Each structure stands twice: as C-alpha cells, then as structure tokens.
C-alpha cells in the first residue's frame, strides 16, 4: 500500500496525521459505503457501544419526517425513500426545457434505496433501539438543480440524479464511488493489484476483512482520504459534493447547538469521501428553490437495486450480500462460500444446466485457490463466479454457459420485494391515478363494473390528453382500458387521429398500481421508467425499438422520444434480421405520418427510414427459405418495403436494390409459399410480367404429383403480396390455374385444396370479383348467363335442404381449419 501511496505522489506521514485528526475529533465520524454489509456490521457495533444521543446520517434532509416509517417494525427492506420536487412557479426557468411544455412545471425525483444491510438503515435501526435520534444531513436534491441560463439546455443528468444514490446515467456506480474510481490513487492501486473492477477492489479490501470496527474505520478513512487527495478537484466542485458537505456541517452544528449537546454525544455516518470535508468552509449551502416537495417511502426490489436493472444503485448482488450479512450476524461467515455455491448450482440445475455435488466441491476448492493466487484470504464474489464458470461451464460461457450465467444472476440478485408500513397511507402513484381520472373526466368508470365505450379524436387537446393517459395505463398493463380500434395510417383520412376504447373498472386496478410504485411515484414517472428499461433491454431489436418510439409518441413523452429515436438508429444498425427490420420500417413509416403533428425531427426520421430500408434489402435473402412460423412476419415486412418503393415519393429509396434482392431471394428459395411471395412481389414491382408470373403457376402442371401439391402454397404466396398485378394479370392467372386444375388428379387436388382456399381468402372483394369475371369470360358466361346460374329452379323445401347441407358442410370445413 505504501508503494501505491508513494506512486500516487502522496505523503504517507501527512496522510496519516490528517486521518488521525479526523478520527480523533470530538465528534465521532464513521465512513461508510452504501449497501456494504461489512460496514454495517462495524457500524452496528460502534453505535451500540458508544450510545450517542444523536446520529447524523447522510440521508435526504427533506425526508426527516419519514424516519419513524422506515424504522417501523412493519417495514421490511428493500425499501426506498422517494423524494420529488415540482417547480410550480418556474423559479428555475426550466419549464419547457426539463418539461414537455412551457406551461407544464418541471418535476425532479430521486430514490434513496435501503437494504437490510445498508449502513444508513442499520444506523437508523440501531439508533432507534438505543433511543438515539437520527438526523438526516444531506442537502435536498432539488437544491442542486441548476437554473437555466437560457443559453444552454438543461444537462440531462440534473433532472434525475440523486446525490449518492441512484444514478440513472447507467455508469453502475454512485457519484461518490465515481469520484473514488477516477482518483489517481485508486487507478494506481487497481493497476498494481490487478483489480478488474471497483467492486472487486472494495470486496478485497473491505468486505472480507476481519478487522475490528476501529481498525476498519481507520483503514477505510485512509483509503478515502488518499482517493480524495488524488481526485479531480473540478469534478468535486461540479458534482455538488461541496454544496452537500456545507449542508452536512450546517445541519450538524445547528442541531448540536439547538439541543445543547456536546460533540462527544453525537456521531456522523456518511460516505467515506465526505469524512475529509473542509471544516473551515464558511460558505452557506445553496438554498432550496420554492416549489412542491413530496417525500415518501416505497417498497423496492432486489432487482431494481442490482446493477443489472440498469439503475446503477451500486450493488451488484443484493441477495449474495444479504446472505453474507445474515451469516456474519450469526457468526457463520465461513459458511458463505458453500451456501452460495450450493444455492447457485441448485438454481443452475433448475435452469437446465447439469451440475453435481462433485462440481460443488471443485468450485469451492477452485474459488479458494483463485483467491489465494489473487492475494485474498477468502474468496469474494468474483472468485466464486470465475470458479463456477471454470468448473461447470463446458465450453464458451457466452454459449454453453448461458443457463449457468442466468443462474448466477438469479442467485446473486434474488427476488425479494420490500414492504412499507401501512401507517404511511395511500401510495403516491395510486393518488396520481385517481387525480388524473378525475381531471380527465373519467369519473363515470370509477368503482362501477360497467363497460364504457369512448371514441377519441386526438386532434382535440382534451381528447388527446385522455388518449395519452389511456395509452399510459395500457402500457403499464393497468386493467382499465382496452384499445378496440387502432388509428389508421393515412393522415388525409383523419383516421390517423381516431381511436376507440373500452373502459371497465376492475378491482385489481389498485393492487396493480401499487406494484408499479417500483417504477415511479406517478403514472408518468412509471411509464418513463418502464419504457426506458425496455428500450435498454431491446436495444438490439430494430422492430421492437421502433415500436417503443411509437409508444413514446402515443404516450406523449417528448424527452424520451428523442432518446428512443437515437436508440432506433443504433438498433437499426445493429439488427440484421429481415423481419425485425421490416417491422421497424412499418413503424417508422407510420411515425413519419405523425411527424409534423408531433414536431419530430423529420430529417433524422428520413435517414432512419433509408437506413432501415437498405439494411432490410440486404437481409432479405437470409429469409428466402425461412420456416412457416416466420412467414407471416416476412410477408408483413415485404409489404412494408414494397409500399415504400411503390409510393415512389422518395428519390433516395433505391427500387433496384429492393428488386434485385427480391429476385435473389426468389431464385434461392426452396419454400413454395415464399417463392410465390417473392415472384408475386416482382410482378407487383413490374419486374416480371403477369404472364411470367402466371407461367410459374402453370409450371406446376408440368411437375410430378409430389411437387404439384405445392401449387396451392405457391399461389397463396403470390396472392399474399399481390395487389394490382392480380387485377391486371387476372386473365393469365386464371388460365394458369385452370391448366393446373385440369391436369391435377383428384387426390392431388384434394391435397392442394386447403392452401388454394387459403390463397383466395387473402383477396379483397374487388380482386375476387375481378378473378370471378375472368373465370366467367373464360367459360363463355355473360353477365346475363351468370344471373341465370344463380336462379334456383327447385322447390322451397329442396332449397331449404340444400341450404342446410351447405351450412353443415361449411361447419365441417371450419373445424378442419384448412387455413
């Protein structure tokens, strides 16, 4: 360590005396890292022994009143303190910048998650047990929001970041951790010790230590001071650290003075980095802007606290550390390795990965040896994971090890969901839901299990707001409304803006809303979080990501629209699946219709459509012989591409690129249905004539019976994509089918019949009429003659009997499910 300190240009003696000065202060400071079980264990001991009258905790000052609810016996972690701020009078000048419109007040919120072994939670519980008061000393998050200077847009991080808690920039670390990671000291230490991550470094240095509480405190304090002294001062200045520390000091001094307490009667629990704040700093902390502040405690989940959720709350394995915490408290630390390994292998077996007890032995031995080689007395999570992969994965971990990795994630993270005492009252999201129902005049559905149908025209502002609200509920799967009629695709018809909904009250609504609390304290926040997570999850799927963009528009989330639009670009570039790209194109074309109405950036949208089109064309031959379950998606994608080409309103859409790839796919395809579709599309594009297309149909007449039976599938493929070519080439098509049916033997005909029927069922009425007229002409039937054909010269009873037989045949045919 001394070498590392020297290499980081630190004076070791000066460092030690600076640490001594803080640790020997009359006011007792204890450094923590959020969600560290080892810190919590030491802290619990220290508080129990020192029995202070007041414990200052780095928690949000605005949530001071919530502490009794956090420590209530009915409350079970994981939980989170949620704090939100609404700038009602636009005192920060961010309306329209941090909110969708100038007349909508910007809202900011942040989460402070707490686990059973979070040092802050343990401090609160222990203080409660010994009768000490807990005071939150952290600066309210909204005091850090920068005012608009009217020349620059709001930095995106300001809107949602909470100091030292959930960082939504997906860095995976809290801001304090980031400062440490960036410090010269840590960088040098990681290089020398070979730490691959900050988590590995932390666990090696502090989580598996056997040091007593005071020794631990000194080691952590020294580490944090070395990091602070080698951090970028600009970062500390810009990220709000100094402002927050000023608030710490002010709160502590005022409280001690007001309560007439000596410093020795109190203690401070805060991030190790803050232990070395400037005690001589006389600057006042920034004032909190006026507005509405709301705080509450909500149930949280292990998954949301885990780094895997994308929220970077600073815990990579909540369940693993929970087990460590429980075993530590019962004096069974040595059981952590076998217990975790056994749980993991058990889960792996459930995931379908064969593992044995011998594997368990090998994994524990390997983990211990790895830890030894890496200079650790006890294996940490990294060693265990490496050992599991080495001993149990028989191949590439990204391939053969997928089930194993799933099991590792499952066991590391756990599934626990917290509970909040019922004394706290109705949750904010439920409150928001009822408030919006009332505002939007949906009162008639409240509490009555009666179906209400409504039609909305989104061009009218009131109805647009109602539509947005219903889309949001639908997205959150709140069982209130069903979209019964989707908007059309043409703006000119006006149907683009019309929707029909069915609404019916459901007793499960409130329960479902409570579950959504994990996502946010309001419907909008929950929708934003959920969509945000989905966009991150689906980042490689163009079709799904573009569907998200459409959702973001329907749900009026302008900030997210920009983000999702960017994600669409990446997804389109990343995705090489034809169906997905075709689906993306379909969504983008619809979104393009909305573009003017929604103030979307059309240039970027046009570029996106072009990229999507080009990539879909290149991907097309890959699906030339796709299996039947993909056919519907392929046809839909082909239609999306063809529609864009046939519209011909864009010069940059290269018709030749599309047609050449369709031609390649037709030549390569061994699947009659798809070959029919590709050739049908070429006819639609006028790349081949209707006679040539008919020739392909007729060619089945020249084949053997086992090939001829596929004529129905081929024709179904043709008719699945044909529009005008069927009308224009009806004569030759009818002739080809006629030729085919004449040579087909009865059994062959019966075999191909279901697909032939299915083929004609794909046609619109006008196309059916056109083909029927051709058939009539071919057989010399005039309009008059066809009229005669329909005349029934039998008795009424016989006609009724025939009708009955026809009905029964139809029923039987339906049961056969030919289509």
């Amino acid at each position, binding site marked *: 360590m001394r070498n590392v300190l020297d290499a980081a240009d630190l004076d070791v003696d000066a460092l030690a005396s600076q640490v001594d000065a803080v640790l020997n202060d009359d006011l007792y400071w204890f450094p923590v890292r959020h969600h560290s079980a080892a810190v919590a264990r030491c802290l619990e001991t220290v508080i129990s022994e020192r029995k202070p009258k007041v414990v200052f905790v780095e928690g949000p000052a605005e949530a001071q009143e919530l502490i009794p609810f956090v420590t209530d016996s009915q409350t079970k972690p994981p939980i989170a303190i949620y704090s939100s701020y609404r700038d009602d009078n636009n005192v920060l000048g961010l309306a329209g910048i941090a909110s969708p419109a100038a007349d909508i007040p910007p809202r900011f919120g942040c989460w402070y998650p707490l686990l059973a072994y979070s040092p802050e939670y343990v401090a609160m519980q222990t203080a409660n047990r010994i009768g000490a008061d807990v005071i939150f000393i952290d600066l309210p998050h909204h005091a850090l929001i920068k005012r608009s200077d009217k020349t620059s847009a709001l930095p995106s991080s300001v809107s949602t970041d909470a100091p030292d808690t959930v960082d939504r920039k997906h860095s995976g670390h809290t801001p304090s951790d980031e400062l440490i990671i960036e410090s010269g000291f840590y960088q040098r230490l990681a290089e020398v010790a*070979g730490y*691959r991550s900050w988590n590995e470094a932390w666990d090696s240095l502090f989580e598996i230590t056997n040091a007593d509480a005071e020794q631990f405190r000194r080691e952590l304090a020294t580490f944090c001071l070395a990091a602070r002294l080698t951090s970028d001062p600009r970062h500390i200045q810009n990220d709000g650290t100094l402002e927050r520390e000023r608030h710490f000091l002010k709160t502590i001094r005022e409280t001690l003075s007001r309560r007439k307490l000596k410093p020795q009667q109190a203690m401070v629990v805060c991030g190790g980095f803050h232990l070395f704040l400037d005690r001589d700093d006389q600057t006042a902390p920034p004032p909190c802007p006026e507005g509405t502040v709301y705080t509450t405690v909500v149930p949280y989940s292990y998954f949301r606290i885990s780094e895997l959720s994308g929220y970077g709350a600073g815990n990579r394995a909540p369940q693993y550390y929970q087990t460590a915490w429980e075993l530590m408290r019962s004096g069974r630390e040595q059981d952590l390795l076998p217990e975790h390994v056994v749980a993991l292998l058990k889960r792996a077996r459930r995931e379908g990965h064969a593992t*044995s007890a*011998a594997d368990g032995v*090998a994994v524990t*031995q*390997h983990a211990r*040896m*790895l830890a*030894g*080689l*890496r200079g650790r007395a006890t294996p940490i999570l990294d060693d265990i994971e*490496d*050992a599991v*992969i*080495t*001993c149990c*994965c*028989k*191949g*590439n*971990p990204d391939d053969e090890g997928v089930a194993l990795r799933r099991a590792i994630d499952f066991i590391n993270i756990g599934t626990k969901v917290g509970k909040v005492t019922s004394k706290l009252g109705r949750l904010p999201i439920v409150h928001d839901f009822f408030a919006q129902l009332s505002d939007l005049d949906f009162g008639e559905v409240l509490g009555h299990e009666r179906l209400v149908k409504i039609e909305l025209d989104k061009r009218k502002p009131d109805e647009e707001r109602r539509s947005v609200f219903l889309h949001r509920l639908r997205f959150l799967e709140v069982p209130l409304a069903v979209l019964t009629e989707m908007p059309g695709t043409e703006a000119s018809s006006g149907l683009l803006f019309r929707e029909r909904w069915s609404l019916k009250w459901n007793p499960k609504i409130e329960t479902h809303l409570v579950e959504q609390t994990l996502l946010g304290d309001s419907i909008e926040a929950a929708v934003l979080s959920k969509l945000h997570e989905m966009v991150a999850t689906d980042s490689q799927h163009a079709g799904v990501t573009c569907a998200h963009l459409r959702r973001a528009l329907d749900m009026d989330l302008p900030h997210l629209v920009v983000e999702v639009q960017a994600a669409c670009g*990446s997804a389109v*570039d*990343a*995705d*090489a699946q034809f169906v997905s790209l075709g689906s993306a194109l379909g969504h983008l074309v619809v979104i393009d219709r909305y573009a003017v109405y929604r103030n979307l950036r059309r240039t970027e949208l046009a570029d996106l459509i072009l990229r999507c089109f*080009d*990539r879909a064309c*290149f991907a097309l031959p890959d699906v030339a012989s796709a299996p039947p379950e993909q056919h519907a998606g392929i046809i839909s994608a082909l239609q999306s591409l063809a529609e864009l080409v046939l519209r011909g309103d864009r010069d940059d859409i290269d018709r030749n690129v599309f047609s050449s790839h369709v031609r390649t796919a037709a030549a390569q395809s061994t699947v009659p249905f798809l070959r029919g579709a590709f050739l049908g599309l070429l006819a639609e594009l006028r790349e081949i004539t209707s006679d040539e297309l008919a020739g392909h149909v007729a060619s089945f007449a020249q084949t053997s019976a086992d090939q001829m039976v596929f004529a129905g599938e081929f024709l179904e493929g043709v008719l699945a994509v044909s529009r005008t070519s069927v009308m224009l080439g009806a004569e030759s098509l009818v002739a080809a089918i006629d030729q085919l049916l004449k040579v087909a033997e009865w059994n062959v005909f019966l075999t191909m019949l279901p697909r032939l029927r299915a083929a004609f069922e794909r046609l619109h009425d006008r196309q059916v009429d056109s083909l029927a007229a051709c058939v009539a002409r071919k057989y010399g039937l005039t309009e008059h003659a066809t009229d005669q054909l329909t005349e029934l010269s039998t008795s009424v009873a016989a006609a009724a009997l025939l009708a009955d037989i026809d009905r029964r045949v139809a029923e039987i045919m339906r049961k056969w499910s030919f289509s």
Partner: protein
Amino acid sequence: MAKKASPAADTTPPTSSTTSEQVREPAEVRYADQLEALRQHDQEAKPRSWRLSPRAIMAYIVGGKPLSAEINGKKREVPITRKFFGDDSLVERAIVTLASERALLLVGEPGTGKSWLSEHLAAAISGTSTLTIQGTAGTTEEHIKYSWNIARIIAEGPTPQNMIPSPTMVAMRGGALLRFEEITRCVPDVQDSLVSILSDKAIAIPELPDANMIWAKPGFNVIATANSRDQGVNELSAALKRRFNYIHIPIVADQKTEVEIVQQRSGELIAQYELPVKINPPILQLLATVFREIRQGKTSDGTSIKKPSTTLSTAEAIGVALDSALHAKFFGSGAVSPGDVARNLIGSIVKEDTEDLNVLKEYNTLVARKRALNDKSWKEFHDTLATQLG
C-alpha cells in the same frame, strides 16, 4: 499419435545452449532466461513438482517487471515479456486448475492461442513442453498409454525394458504436465482411455504381472486443447467432461491488442523469411479493422454486417500480413499497400463456402466504399477488392 516423446522420466528442461539451428525451439528453450530469472526470485510456495509458484508462472505468462538474475554465471537484467495477450483472469483460472484435481481443457476458435498458452504453461510448470500427444483420427489407445518393441517382445516376451512409454507415462513418472493437442479429433473410445488416467492417476499394464501399475507422481496433470469448430464431431463423453475444467479462449477483444499482436508476430515472420519489407502501422490498422469488423459482424460505427462461415482469428490476420509482404516483395513494389491486403484477404475469408464471397462483397459495398470517399488507403483497398470480386 505421439508427436514427440522425451526419454523416460526425464523432464529436465533443455537449456539455452541447445542448438539454434532448429526452425523452432520449445518455449522452455526460447525463454530459458526468463524462467531462470523468475525461479531465482520465487519466494512463494510451489505445488509439489512445480518448478515455479503459481504467482511466478502468472508473471511469466502475462509479463512483469524486469528481474536481475544470474544467467550462465553472469548477473544481468532479464525482461519478463508478455506471452499471452488477453484476459489475465483466464490464465489465473488455468494455473489454478492445473494445481487442482481436475485437468485443463483450453477450448476456442482456431488461431486464438490455445496451444501457445498450453506450451508456455507446461514450460513454466514442468520445465518441458514437449510431452505432447497430437490428437488425430488415427490416434490410438497405445499412443496415449504405452506400446511395445515388437521385435524384442518376440525375442524376450513382455518386460518393462521392452515397453515404449507414451508421453503420458513419462509425464506421470516425472510428475509433469502432459499436453494433449486437439483432443476432440480423437475418436471417443480413444478419448475415454484418459478417464482412468485422470481419475486413478494410474496406467494399468496387464502384460506385466510384477509391475502392472504405473502411478503418477504429484504434479502430473493434463492440458488439452480443443477447437470449438470441432464440437459435435467427437464430443467428449460426460465422464471425461467432468474431469476437465474448460477454459474458453476468446478471440482478442480489443483492436489495439490485436494490432500489437499482428505487428509483433508478422514482424518476426517477415524477419524469419528474410524479407526486406516493412508493413506500415496504418496498413496493419486497416487489416485489423477489416478482420475485426467482418469477424464480429459489426462495424466500428455500429452497422451490422454478415459474418463469414470461417473463423477470422488473429493468426489468420498474421497470415494475411505475411502473404501481403511476400506479394509486395516478389510481385509488387516492395512496400505493402492496402491493395496487397485486399488481394490476400479473399483466401482467408472464402475457404469452404463460396457464400462467403457475398460477405466480402457486402462489406466492400456497405462499409469500404463509404470510407473510400475520405481515405486514400480505404479507396485503394475498396477498388482492389472490387476488382478481385468481379
């Protein structure tokens, strides 16, 4: 079949005085100075029969600080160079496995350095990397266990002196590491002869009633390699799989490292062929970029492209670099150009499946053409490749 068998129980490392007229020297000879320097400084506990401690072996493989050591009676500073480029934790896991009950199977795409790592591990742990069995479809159980001198058997009958030990037996007697290359090329029956060797640590010799068991000394273990492209051909049995810890060696993860490897290895090969040609870094950068992007099916700006059916390992890139140098020397201007790279690329990418031509065509159309607009190197690469592809 047995590739090379050292004399019975002789696992003494060759010294650097071994003749340098060989085309290729084993690792323990090439890096004898580094191994000796590490040995002189090694203060840590070693597993039984190991020549170095796990931490010293780690330093030998991934490189470390230069060490002052006495080599051939003279004190000097010996640099400890990096032998394996990639994730260091893979090497840690490999070393730990070799010190445990289980054998080690290095698995990965061709050209990812499995044999290279295996050779260096054996050299550092046992002092010899030549106790090797090369797995093929023709490998038999005798190659793995032992065989007999038939002429002497006829004359004298089975005696220990008439037995020809396999590399396995030599490794067992000396407490050394056996290298088993391409294990999945062997048929399953032959592979399974390893089961008893790995679990009982012994070979039974029923022909010798008085000396019918050869027991392995501590330190004996097996490092096998398998090509992931061969998976499913001669899949290891469940019993054998259980006795191996698998370590997957991925293709080099970052471009910078790959360029370094290509530069270093192609430089060595060019020197070996005595070619007065130098490949400039921008050309190597271009070569590494093309390989990476086609291999990953994704360009640096995030565009997905088709992947070929062949593996584009770093070894292949080194091959293209050497071919380009040879082409430039004998048929070109003497300096390797982007056009030379383009000309020699096709053979590396299009091997078994002519569909791979379309992969190159797509890359040239979608990626290289765009870059050619602003970059002369890419323009030459694109134009040459377009001409070659027709």
